[in-house]
């Protein structure tokens, strides 16, 4: 543990209102499952010292179907998501993604809201939310706003979330068509993605990739090419112009490019 734990403190509100008031008065860092935050504390990379425990907030938990939307509380864990009949019925690839996050312990603690707010381009659920055209409900003490998931990220680990806001829920409009998901990790479990892809085969196909750009990426031009009747090889050519993968500790640009193309081909043939 590189961080000085004795210097840390946290508030433990019981209601969302209380939490939002605290956030309005002081910039506190929300803690949900702490599965990302704790890593930062361990390596000493997280400099924040004042935290807001949001695990007690009932308002952030639960899964429901409202009209044509699947609504998931930001504080819902992967374990709950992967076992939810509603998720399995409407967004089975979200259950797939949840079941491939980390291992059992991480699934028991880690939350969907944490994955979104953490803003890693490798977050496994993010391509699913991208193809779902999900909507994020954000709240502060003064306001509530609905932000499309696909405009939530503004750059590498940058989002439009304001310091006084919490993500309250994530809404996934239902969709027709076959859903497809593939995580390519560094190993079979407890793995960060080298590449992760979600797709929906509808009239206008939807395709998203993680770990190939500074943010999760919806491949609009590739989608358009396929919808317009391009050959799969041409579509792969378009895909290559949309992604900007890099060499890092986990993989290489060349590998990511090749696999992105292969996965698109696999999805299209499925």
């Amino acid at each position, binding site marked *: 543990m590189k961080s000085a734990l004795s210097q840390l403190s946290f508030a433990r509100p019981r209601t969302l209102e209380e939490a939002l008031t605290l956030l309005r008065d002081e910039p506190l860092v929300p803690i949900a499952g702490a599965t990302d935050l704790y890593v930062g504390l361990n390596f000493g990379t997280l400099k924040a010292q004042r935290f807001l425990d949001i695990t007690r907030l009932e308002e952030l938990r639960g899964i429901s179907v409202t009209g044509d939307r699947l609504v998931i509380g930001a504080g819902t864990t992967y374990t709950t998501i992967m076992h939810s009949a509603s998720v399995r019925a409407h967004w089975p690839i979200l259950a797939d993604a949840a079941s491939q996050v980390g291992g059992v312990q991480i699934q028991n603690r880690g939350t969907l809201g944490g994955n979104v707010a953490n803003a890693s381009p490798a977050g496994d659920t993010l391509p699913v939310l991208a193809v779902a055209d999900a909507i994020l409900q954000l709240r502060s003490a003064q306001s509530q706003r609905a932000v499309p998931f696909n405009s939530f990220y503004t750059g590498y680990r940058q989002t439009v979330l304001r310091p006084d806001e919490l993500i309250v829920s994530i809404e996934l409009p239902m969709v027709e068509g076959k859903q497809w998901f593939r995580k*390519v990790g560094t190993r*079979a479990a407890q*793995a*960060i993605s080298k590449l992760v892809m979600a797709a929906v085969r509808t009239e206008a196909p939807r395709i998203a990739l993680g770990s190939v750009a500074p943010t999760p990426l919806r491949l609009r031009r590739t989608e358009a090419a396929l919808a317009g009747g391009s050959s799969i090889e041409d579509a792969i050519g378009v895909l290559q112009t949309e992604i900007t993968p890099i060499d890092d*500790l986990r*993989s290489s640009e060349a*590998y990511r490019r090749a696999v992105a193309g292969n996965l698109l081909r696999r999805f299209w043939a499925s």
Partner: protein
Amino acid sequence: MSVVGTSVARKDGIGKATGAAKYADDLSIPGMLFGRTVRSTIPCGRVKRIRYDFDTTGFTIVDRRDIPLDGRNVVALIEDDQPFLVERDVRHVAEPIVLLAHADREKLLAADVIIEYEVEPPVFDPEASTESLKTLTIDKGHLDAGFAQADVIVEGTYRTGHQEHVYIEPNGVIAVPEDGGIAIFGSIQCPFYVVKALKSLLGPKAHVRVVQTETGGGFGGKEEYPSMIAGHATLLALKAGLPVKIVYDRTEDMIATTKRHPSIVRHRTGVKRDGTLVAMDVEVILDGGAYITLSPVVLSRGCIHAAGPYRCDNVRIRGRAMLTNTPPNGAFRGFGAPQTIFAIEAHMDRIAEALGVDPVTIRERNALVPGDTTATGQRLTADCSALPVLREAVERTDFRRKREALRGTNRGIGLSLFYHGSGFTGSGELRLASKAALELTDHGVRILVSSTEIGQGTRTMHAQIVAETLGIPYEDVDVAQPDTTLVPDSGPTVASRTCMVVGRILQRCAEDLKRRLGDLTPAEYYRAHGPFTIVREHEPPGWIQWDDETYTGDAYATYAWGCDVVEVELDADTCEVRPLHLTAVQEVGKAIHPALARGQIEGGSAQGIGYAIVEHVAMRDGVMANASLTNYTIPTTLDTPAMDIVLLENPYEDGPFGAKGLGELPMDGPAPAVINALRHLGVDLSEIPATPERVMSACGSR
């Protein structure tokens, strides 16, 4: 009564299962300070200036000038070349320069030490290095004459990377000033190595006591490094006059401590059309890192195993361990053999391919049988089991049929045949002159050895040997915690020697004791006659002849033998290699404790699978860049294949109940079997780990 050959409850089981077992970091001693090591951030150069950019009140600060007058700034091992603290020259990143201690861990971590350097160009490529740490040559027959008989010559170059031990407990010790000297409590494989190193640091007359605390794995990674960390804790403790604890976190442990030596092995082999090996020319290059440490002996074992378990009259093996500006590489389960066995076993499949025969046939034709001689000229006797393990594995997996059946699918199957010498090389065991002792207690006997329990089952297996020999219940045998002032030097817990060698000494102790007890039980004898201790020294078999100059003779008292068959699946989209099934047939002389023996083989095979597929140390500018459990991936259970473990027993006459060494053997087989399974799939790879990125380049991305 028979306790040998049954899977009795582990001596250390309950303590570990309940959490009662105390590891170094669990211990706290009144007044104890925490220690920290300030390390070099450059791979090569000189320290110019050290600045302490913090309030030093309450800190104990140690640098090279604090080495005691009677002592020397060298971690004594094979050669005296590695300092405890940098004198001036820096040879690798993470080299210890300054030590700090403080009662408050957070203050300790926050302290900022600024070191200025004069930087020099480093060498990272062992082939570009001009400084060798050790060279050796094994010569048998006449290479030219051999090649003259060959119908086909097959060449190949094989490469392996670093491997990190990832023992579950990082390195850690506590040093406590005691009797004008020091007592060390720590996570240690070889307590007497630490004594030797500290006597070099403090002077030969200093009081040094080393106690092994419960240890969470070692795999060789706690063979030499604990001497370094114990030296650091000692310097701080003596200066502060207080106990000092140093426990590394995972990142520091990965960055600073030893790894498996990367290797480059070149083979040039002459074969006759019928598959007979007639000439083997082998070049072995190891990346030793920045100091000699154990590289000479790792190179030695690697070279001795480099011709594989095969008969060939004309062999030349030239080895060299080269200096590079990276942290010293060191002991790791297998000790050079996994590297060279990988090369020869991958090469054998290429030879088979060149001749148009299958992998089994080429091995059957050349496998060593009793009466044959190895590359060093050792004549093998009845305990040679190369063919039996091969046949069992081939039959059990229906290898030939399966290989045909899988053709054209995305699955491949490969095998490897291997052996591993038990105990120290050549005259090493004679020189060690290891001792073990048994003492009577009021309810039985207590074993006194410096062999350490590091998860592999030392205490249990030793107690079984003693109980069986004495004819007393297993429960009546205690095992003393290794404390170098209380137990004799049984030699290091390395080289697959703890059962075969130390177990054998204990068996002799027990035989002597049994004669002495007559009709009495140990407890009865104790009550009648009081305390009694029996000490015996190892007596290596008289027939062992070894010449260190020419590298000829009986390299090992015996060998354990193995054949692994691995089936893999290749994902065409991602080039991920998934090991589906592993069959490990291993001949170990005698499994004293079958469950533990299987445990060793399962664990060693999993470690071998990791070495083959996922474990990649990314060295950037001489430092491990992926020093975390997130980015240095070892196999999880989901990455580990289903395993079929088969124990064969062909006794070694001088081992306890026929036992040979088995701890390292399972590490040797999986990597070449995986590479050969990939070759079966048409992937021509000669380097591990076989990461998807490498497999993709080998396939030529689609």
